């Protein structure tokens, strides 16, 4: 009896300490809150959009749809954080570059309002991938080989990125009128689930496979924890750090595709604004140390969805968009404090203290 109780207690203590605990608990609280406040939050209905195609609508769909870019960025940000012990704050700006490059390629020489796309979308996307990976390589080189603090190194692109994006299109705002281009950020006719959801899931599957079938996870963590002993075990810490920034670049291109496709155009100063902070937050919310080392990819991605869940909930309760960040900040403080190892440790201890009393009561 006591043994059984102990094991339950231990399981619960373990649960408190588990990395997925905080994002899951946060999600649960948000769900419960919404259930009480207004159960219709969870209603998903099948309607028709303007073109007459069936689409799913409802707050849940919005959350899954809008969190896509963030989830994809969280993947890259987790790796960057783990390997280099710092964050890439240039992702919002490089998304602007990615979007701008794609639009530039699609417009070709036909001006900024082409009737038809001048190049296949896949070509535009691949070129954008190459460009953002080059920018990632630039960041990575500064961090890994020149040993510049990640936040300072990426501050360069953070500052310059949006100007570069505007410059690529001569400061014009190209508009792609071809409906096909809008599929990536909206709906493919006949499929009621928003396309970004599929793209995000595909990215998750890819990273899951990569983590399973390569040593990316082990190498990145090892380098992040102790780069000197990693080197003496045959790893090349600089190259591994460098590569995480290149992977981040790839994530940026994918997120950029979704972003520009959503509106079929671009606004250089607004596109993906402040998304880097949300991406960093997603990593932190997942219980990953921002100082690098061990990481849990699933927890980071979960963190991204929690953030979006929160944002959408606030929108639903008609919080003015100017006031939104303030509300968000309060919730974030609570979540981050709760996910701090010190607090989690204490919660576990608290449970230990309560648990034996309960056990005694149970016996009586």
């Amino acid at each position, binding site marked *: 009896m006591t043994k059984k109780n102990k094991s339950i207690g231990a399981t619960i203590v373990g649960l408190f300490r588990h990395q997925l605990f905080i994002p899951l608990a946060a999600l649960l609280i948000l769900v419960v809150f919404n259930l009480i406040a207004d159960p219709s939050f969870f209603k998903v209905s099948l309607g028709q959009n303007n073109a007459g195609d069936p689409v799913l609508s409802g707050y849940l769909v919005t959350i899954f749809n809008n969190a896509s870019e963030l989830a994809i960025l969280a993947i890259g940000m987790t790796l960057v954080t783990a390997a280099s012990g710092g964050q890439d704050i240039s992702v919002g700006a490089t998304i602007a570059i990615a979007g701008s490059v794609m639009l530039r390629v699609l417009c070709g020489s036909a001006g900024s309002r082409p009737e038809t796309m001048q190049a296949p979308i896949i070509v535009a996307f691949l070129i954008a991938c190459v460009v953002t990976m080059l920018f990632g390589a630039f960041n990575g080189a500064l961090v890994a080989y020149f040993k510049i603090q990640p936040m300072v190194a990426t501050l360069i692109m953070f500052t310059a990125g949006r100007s570069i994006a505007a410059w690529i299109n001569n400061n014009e705002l190209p508009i792609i009128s071809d409906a096909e281009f809008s599929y990536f950020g909206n709906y493919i006719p006949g499929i009621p689930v928003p396309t970004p959801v599929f793209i995000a899931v595909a990215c998750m599957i890819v990273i899951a496979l990569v983590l*399973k*079938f*390569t*040593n*990316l996870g*082990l*190498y990145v*963590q*090892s380098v992040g*924890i*102790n780069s*000197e*002993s*990693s*080197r*003496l*075990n*045959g*790893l*090349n810490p600089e190259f591994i750090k460098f590569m995480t920034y290149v992977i981040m670049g790839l994530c940026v291109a994918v997120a950029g595709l979704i972003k520009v496709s959503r509106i079929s155009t671009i606004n250089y100063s607004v596109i993906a604004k402040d998304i880097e902070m949300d991406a960093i937050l997603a990593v932190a919310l997942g219980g990953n140390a921002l100082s690098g*080392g*061990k990481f849990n990819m699933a927890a980071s991605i979960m963190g991204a969805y929690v953030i979006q869940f929160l944002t959408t909930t606030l929108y639903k309760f008609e919080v003015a968009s100017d006031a939104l960040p303030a509300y968000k900040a309060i919730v974030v403080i609570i979540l981050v404090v709760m996910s701090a190892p010190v607090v989690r440790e204490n919660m576990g201890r608290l449970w230990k203290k309560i648990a034996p009393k309960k056990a005694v009561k149970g016996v009586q």
Partner: protein
Amino acid sequence: MDNQNKILEMRGICKYFPGVKALQNVNFTLREGEIHALMGENGAGKSTLIKVLTGVYLKDEGSIMLEGKAVNIKSPQDAQKAGISTVYQEITLCPNLTVAENMYIGRKKGAGVNWRGMNQDAKRMLTSLGIPAEPTQQLGSCSIAVQQMVAIARAVDMECKVLILDEPTSSLDEQEVQKLFGLMRSLKEKGVGIIFVTHFLDQVYEVCDRITVLRDGQLVGEYLIEDLPRVQLVSKMLGKELDDLSDIKNSDENGEKTYSGESVFEAHNLTGTTGVEPFDFEIHKGEVNGFTGLLGSGRSECVRAIFGADKTQSGTVKMNGKTVKITKPLDAMKKGIGYLPEDRKRDGIVGDLSVRENIILALQVMKGFFKPFSRAKAEAFADEYIKLLEIKTASTNTPIKSLSGGNQQKVILARWLLTNPQYLILDEPTRGIDVGTKVEIQKLVLKLAAEGKSVTFISSEIDEMLRTCSRLIVMRDRKVVGELTGDELTQNNIMMTIAGGEK
């Protein structure tokens, strides 16, 4: 002697970690003006007991009395305020601050800092202790020994009633140790109680008044030094009668083989960027040789050059008679060389990773990025070596940093044994490790040699080198100054060669 004032009493201390009972009902008493040795094997709970006392860990049960009053120590600051100062086994200072800053950090109240005064005080302290460091020098630029001494200076400088020295001598040479002992004796006269944790039996019998022995987290007993002869101490620590030590000495008799066997590794004019004079080196199949010399003589730099840990600047290297290029550790690993580094914490362990991941790391890297071991395979490897080397760990999933020093070292050893190297370099594998494990490692080295592997063994303890090595390369001031084999291998000869006397 028992009437002396008790300054510190710990009663019934218990501390549990997930899956491990680190301390069970341990009592410890420290009297005014005594040097009290705390002895035990790796994982016996010495470091844990000290961390409980200094507030690094919170005790789960038990009480601590300081000068007759119960105290509740919850943080290192509490301990410091109560007059408990500590010098840890691993250096815990900040390498990027200056020596003076390290000595005074976190001790002054208020926001202002009197830099001049601080540097002057530090200078006075350093001179009085004879520590060769400038107050304004970055700590990281000092040698490990000097860093350790600065840590001691810091502890001594604080008005302490209880001074804890956790393995302070493991990186000091004989002279520095004597200096430290002088210091300890003068502190003792002032009535400071000193808790001394060490693995060096000689040192215990040189300075200590009393010994408390722990084993497997439990108290074995407290003894006056004159009541406990060495052999008994060792057997109490190990919990068994010990003939292992003599065993090894006997097996030394047949260590005079001449190695006409093929050479496994050969280097000519080799030197790395760390500035050792170019040296020649050769090791044969089944041979154990070693680099010896004082701290900082360049012995570690030599083996680092062999492994490619530092960029090589000149020289040619042959492996099994064929000329090869070793420019980075991976080259060396692929040629079948393993290297256990001197500084376990900085260069060896990957702290947050599990024991399992730490064991498979090197082999995994050699196997390649796209070929990860399956979980089952990794578990099997880890289990095999945990059993083989008797590594004390709660599970293969435990982060290596929560293991005791000796067990961490065994994990690193397991990592290299797993790669099945033909040539293994062990730089200070027994540093900060208890007698029992030391003997195990020495035996393992001899066993590996008997299996036809070649081993280069470095140790600060000359008798350990004499026991294991059949050839010693002697270094002084970053130069190879001599080579001793066979009959020449005696303590006197080595000392004389190191000191530069005629052979």
